[in-house]
């Protein structure tokens, strides 16, 4: 992958949280640990992991909603890691986010029209009146009617609210949209509507998606590339089809085996990993999966595992599976 053409390129991105552990003591929690990823234009990279894997923190770091401890974020070849104030507010027109909870992501005090128009007011310097035409177009594009612009969020269904969130994210035609579990709080029949909408918008506007999810079936459908995270580390990355077909990291394998599939003939393999995910504070200095991994050996405990390219962009951080 050549960095030059990528919509987003992040290098060694790290976030350490300082956690109070009682009294005056505290510990450092590495929520995101040396993550390097990139997304070419018009492609979707899915970041998959369980709660506590750091995928949501990663998204916040990329959008500069959180300050990274270390590392760089390049958006269309511009380093945005150190941007501040007005400069940063400007660059937000190029990168957007759609949230998991559609209601909670819309301000209850603003009409739908105002919410969707806001990026135009801030970045293109339009007035509400000037923006209204484009707002109406965008609402129709996401499957709502222009008269929805006058409504308030609590008058919408979950699916409609999520369409408003998508309209807000897409109205400035950004280069990158982070989708933070955009369908996981929606009903199944509505979920597929939103997925189809996202896909057609991507084709139309050539947007890059960073798709955060724990739901493998949704990822299988929408992602071109995949990065699997565990306790702040990317343990495997590469083309989605390739990873689904032949997962190499034991954790990826466990995820794929554990995910129930809508096929009565397929029985889920349940007991691949031992125990439950520990806190990121308690993980081994070496491989984060040490202690739960069925194929681990003593050396894994304190030998850090680097991502190694095993061909066709497929990279895995496990010395036993290279």
């Amino acid at each position, binding site marked *: 992958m050549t960095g030059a053409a990528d919509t987003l390129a992040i290098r060694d991105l790290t976030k350490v949280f300082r956690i109070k552990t009682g009294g005056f003591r505290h510990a450092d929690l590495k929520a995101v640990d040396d993550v390097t990823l990139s997304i070419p234009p018009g492609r979707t990279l899915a970041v998959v992991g369980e709660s506590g894997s750091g995928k949501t923190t990663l998204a916040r770091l990329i959008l500069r909603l959180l300050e990274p401890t270390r590392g760089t974020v390049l958006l269309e070849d511009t380093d945005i890691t150190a941007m501040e104030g007005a400069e940063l507010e400007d660059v937000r027109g190029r990168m957007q986010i759609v949230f998991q909870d559609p*209601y*909670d992501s819309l301000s209850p*005090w603003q009409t739908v029209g105002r919410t969707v128009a*806001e990026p135009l007011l801030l*970045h293109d310097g339009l007035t509400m009146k000037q923006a209204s035409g484009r707002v109406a177009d965008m609402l129709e594009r996401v499957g709502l009617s222009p008269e929805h612009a006058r409504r308030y*969020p609590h008058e919408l269904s979950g699916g409609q609210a999520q369409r408003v969130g998508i309209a807000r994210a897409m109205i400035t035609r950004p280069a990158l949209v982070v989708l933070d579990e955009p369908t996981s709080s929606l009903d199944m029949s509505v979920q597929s509507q939103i997925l189809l909408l996202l896909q057609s918008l991507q084709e139309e506007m050539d947007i890059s998606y960073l798709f955060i999810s724990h739901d493998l079936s949704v990822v299988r459908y929408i992602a071109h590339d995949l990065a699997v995270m565990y306790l702040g580390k990317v343990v495997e990355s590469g083309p989605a089809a390739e990873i689904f077909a032949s997962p190499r990291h034991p954790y990826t394998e466990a995820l794929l085996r554990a995910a129930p599939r809508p096929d009565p003939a397929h029985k889920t393999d349940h007991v691949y990993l031992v125990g439950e995910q520990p806190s990121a504070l308690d993980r081994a200095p070496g491989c984060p999966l040490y202690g739960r991994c069925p194929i681990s050996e003593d050396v894994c405990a304190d030998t850090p595992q680097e991502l190694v390219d095993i061909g066709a962009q497929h990279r895995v951080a496990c010395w036993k599976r290279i």
Partner: protein
Amino acid sequence: MNARKYDARLIIGLTMFGFMVAVAVFAPLIARNDPLAIDLTNQFVPPSADHWFGTASLGFDVFARVVYAARHDLLIAVSAVALSIAIGHPIGLLVGYVGGWGDSVTMRCLDVVQAFPALVLAIGVLSALGQGVRNLILVIGIVGVPTFVRLVRAEVRSLREHAYVEAGRAVGNSRSKILVRYIAPGTVGTVVTQAAVSCGWAVLLAAALGFIGLGVPLPEPEWGAMIAEGIPEMRRGGSWWIPVFPGIAIAITAFSLILIGESVADLVEPTRRKSR
């Protein structure tokens, strides 16, 4: 489905409060007698056609004094709460949103102020500042500030966690715009609710201060001070009308305000929850 029931409480509260406000505004029309008129021949007269609520020492007409006192007590309560909000609301917004060092210092200061029971603190400050309506408003207003700072701060801190605030930042709003457009509107409901309840407390506090002689200076009529006049009568065993009527006036005013606050809170709460 419960809206009707809460509306009833709100209507009762508003009616009672409106009545007291009307009494204050139209006092000269309601009371035929002069509240300051002294009539030494008619002291401690029980309620009669001439003096509906009887007379007190110096022949003061209790009815006229109860009616005119509404002006003082309502003015003091409303101004004091307005002062509390004017100081407390912006501080609460700011320390709640910015947090950090300024927040900790502010909160420790509030801890200190609130370590004093409100009445006792007011006594201390008033005994130093001296009596007078303006000082009363000042003291009652300042005593009420911590309530609003804490309330607004807590509300801001919970509003701050909502995804729509993050969404506002993600589309490129500056921090000050976020505070004004996304967070401040969410605090209005609770502040209005608390304002009504605080007004009720302010009436009670003003009356309590009047009762121990730190209120509106005599001979101006004030409910709390009027009740205090009844104490010596207690031991003598009569003149029940002197303390009873001003007390009822206080209770009606405070009750209506608290009722308004509570029913508004119940009305605001479900809609807010729904819209989140």
